């Protein structure tokens, strides 16, 4: 095993996007893939409510993340790297980043896509100047990525962790975003094997009122009640985030907010998501809510959407019903 892969494997680093994919395997796949050129893409399009850890990295440790990217270019012999930045991040940090990049083959790209731009193949479409929609998989980006070439797509936090690994400073910690009612919106760097409860307590965020939380993202994340917090974030799909809700938060407003978010962010490619989110909202806004129909649509979203965005629409709603409040 070569040195880089060995380091990543030993660190047991898991990608910090929502794919939960071992970073070492991904790097190895790109390394082994055949292509005239190779590319590195750093995804900084974070668009999920309650998730702002990439912003934290840009603010505090962009140098470490850039080191990670540089190493990827060198390791893969890539033609260049592209940093795909959310519009406001681009405005705010571009000059700082350019200084750090210097003469390295790293380009900055201002995002065009919104939330779906975070899906790695949609991001590639966006970089190639096309409509921002996910691609059919397989093939996956490590084989056929940017301009059809093998491409490593990692999230900014992942590159930050890689930078730490290279410096020998990685301590199996993860960036966790805290937000919600009675909680200061803040990023904490915490051991990844802590339970959610411990994370809340150690950061002084354990609410004094009765509450429930949403972990893994403020839209697509899973809803848990306050007695279900003995698990780690690794057990749960998604991003490093914990959003706290007052127990009195009404279902109507919650569900409406989630559905509105997904409807606004759907790319429009596939029927369950494009039509489904539209109809979910229509049902919620109608005088008599047809919950049977609502659940049929959630079923189609979960089981037949083209990409992860559509598939995740039901997750907050169904886990809320299951863990917090049965649907009326």
């Amino acid at each position, binding site marked *: 095993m070569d040195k880089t892969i060995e380091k990543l494997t030993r660190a047991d680093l898991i990608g910090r996007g929502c794919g939960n994919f071992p970073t070492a395997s991904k790097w190895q796949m790109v390394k082994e893939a055949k292509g005239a050129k190779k590319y590195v893409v750093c995804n900084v399009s974070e668009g999920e409510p309650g998730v702002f850890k990439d912003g934290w990295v840009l603010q505090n440790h962009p140098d470490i993340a850039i080191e990670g990217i540089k190493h990827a270019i060198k390791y893969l012999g890539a033609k260049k790297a592209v940093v795909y930045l959310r519009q406001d991040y681009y405005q705010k940090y571009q000059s700082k980043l350019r200084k750090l990049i210097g003469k390295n083959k790293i380009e900055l790209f201002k995002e065009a896509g919104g939330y779906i731009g975070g899906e790695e193949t949609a991001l590639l479409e966006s970089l190639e100047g096309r409509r921002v929609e996910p691609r059919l998989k397989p093939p996956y980006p490590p084989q056929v990525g940017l301009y059809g070439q093998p491409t490593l797509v990692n999230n900014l936090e992942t590159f930050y962790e890689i930078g730490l690994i290279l410096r020998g400073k990685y301590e199996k910690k993860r960036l966790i975003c805290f937000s919600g009612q009675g909680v200061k919106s803040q990023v904490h760097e915490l051991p990844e094997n802590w339970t959610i409860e411990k994370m809340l307590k150690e950061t002084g965020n354990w609410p004094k009122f009765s509450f429930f939380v949403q972990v893994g993202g403020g839209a697509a994340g899973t809803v848990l009640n306050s007695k279900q917090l003995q698990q780690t974030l690794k057990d749960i799909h998604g991003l490093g985030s914990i959003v706290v809700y007052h127990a009195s938060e009404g279902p109507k407003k919650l569900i409406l907010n989630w559905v509105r978010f997904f*409807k606004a962010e759907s790319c429009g490619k596939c*029927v369950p998501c*494009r*039509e489904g989110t539209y109809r979910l909202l229509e049902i919620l806004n109608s005088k008599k809510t047809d919950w049977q129909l609502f659940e049929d649509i959630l079923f189609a979203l979960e089981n037949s959407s083209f990409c992860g965005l559509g598939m995740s629409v039901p997750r907050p709603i169904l886990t809320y019903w299951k863990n917090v409040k049965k649907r009326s």
Partner: protein
Amino acid sequence: MYIKINGKKVSAKPEQTILEAAHGIVAIPTLCHHPDLKVKANCRVCLVELKNGKLVTACSTKVKDGMEVFTDTEKVKRARKINLEMIFAEHEEKCPECIWDKNCSLQDYAKKYQGKITRFKDRKKNRNIFGFSNTILFDQTKCIDCNNCIEVCHKQEVHFYDKAGKGADSIVLPTKNKKYDCTTCGQCITHCPVGAIQGNPHWPEVEASLKDKKKIVVAQVAPSVRASIGEEFGYEPGTVVTGELVSALKKLGFDYVFDTNFGADITTFEEAGECFECLGKGKMVTTSCCPAWVKFVEFNYPEFVGNISTTKSPQQCLGVAVKTYFAEKMKIDPRKIKVVSIMPCVAKKFEADRPELEYNNMKMVDYVLTTREVAHMMRRAKIDFTKMKPQKFDDPLGQSSGAAAIYGVSGGVMESALRTALDYYAGQKLKSIDFKQIRGLEGTKKAEIMVKGKKVKIIVTSGLGNAKKVMDLIKAGKENPHFLEVMACPGGCINGGGQPVPTNAQIRAKRAAPLYVLDKKSKFRKAHDNPGLKKLYKEYIDKHPDLHHEMFHTSNYRQKRWGARRLN
């Protein structure tokens, strides 16, 4: 290798998708899938369940050895039904005015999968209807966002559709980019799964003319229609039903039924002469019988307009023959005659309306019906096509050569012209009149033949995407053919925008094959041997030599951009 579908062992090939492996074994509904196009997997109705309980789309999932799939589980039914119902609500039902009525996937699936067409409120009522170049009607209120039209028009290198907005605001719309203009080839029509795109309908006017006792209504039937219209009535693709078609047209009320193949013989005879003349001058000639190609050149390669053959297309030549020669012979006022072409083509509607094709201030073809439209009229008139007793085309414009029969397929026009150019104009003895090098359905074919000791280069191409590649090479001086045949539709008119759906590679091959059989079986295989044609020239043209050129030739003009107009 094998997979199991609903418990039944089925053999499959490694590169196949589940949908392909299931073909002919179990029906899986599809909307966005088209074998001519890339797999997009956006409609999500072709769902099947795998053994692990996961639903996947059959169109996009490759088979694996030993894979087990189930096509009708509770899970499949639940997701498929709701997806279908949401699709129905994207499509405003206008069935009574739609020519796909009763031949429509949405209606079929609603019945078969017990989806309610009205489960949700139609959400696209307020969208627009556009007319492209006066010929293509695009109705956004029926569009289900499958993107087929966008892709097929890109493949044609026309790029006339765009997509804007996201989520439920996604919308397919005509491009605003002034660099592009629709050629009216109609490929988007045959690739739209839900009839959101149609040719400008002429059948209501034809029905009215047929009822009008004061009018003489004359039909002419294009070469490829006889091998494709059967599909509309349940025949296997490629079944030749010429006689039944003539009968059914008579039954619809046409006073005379002539053969566009006669027109094709005129076109061949005239064009071969032109080619022969240009050869002497070293000037490239490209064919003019495909109006979408002519429009494509006019708009995209105006500097080559002078290379388009001046010879009129078969439908126009026959139209002229009807309104001059035939009218005079029968002592009918040509203004009382309505010529109706039955065409595989939508662009022919555009051609028929071109002012520069008028003669004596009259349109020579009044209406153009597509293969689909005429079948629709027959169904409306409750004509049982399969019970028709075959009849012959009427005289004097019913006879034709084998060379005309093959006009319907890519390479046919060139082959016909070569036969006449070599045999008649060059006086060269031909060992064989079969030009096999330029036959077949591949995109671009090349050949070199000797004419009077001189090497003549020929390129035959179909599909505007292929044609563009060839044109760019010619423009760059990297290709320099003497003769260039282009058919806008891939494969030629057998795959025209007015033909029955579905269409795919096998169906195209089946439609093409019998045209060569008809050629082979013909008594006369060269246009100039057609006795009817000889008679026409002797009895009419030779008596009016001053009219000859204007009757059968035109000049093409550089087109302005037609663009798209909102119609509602």
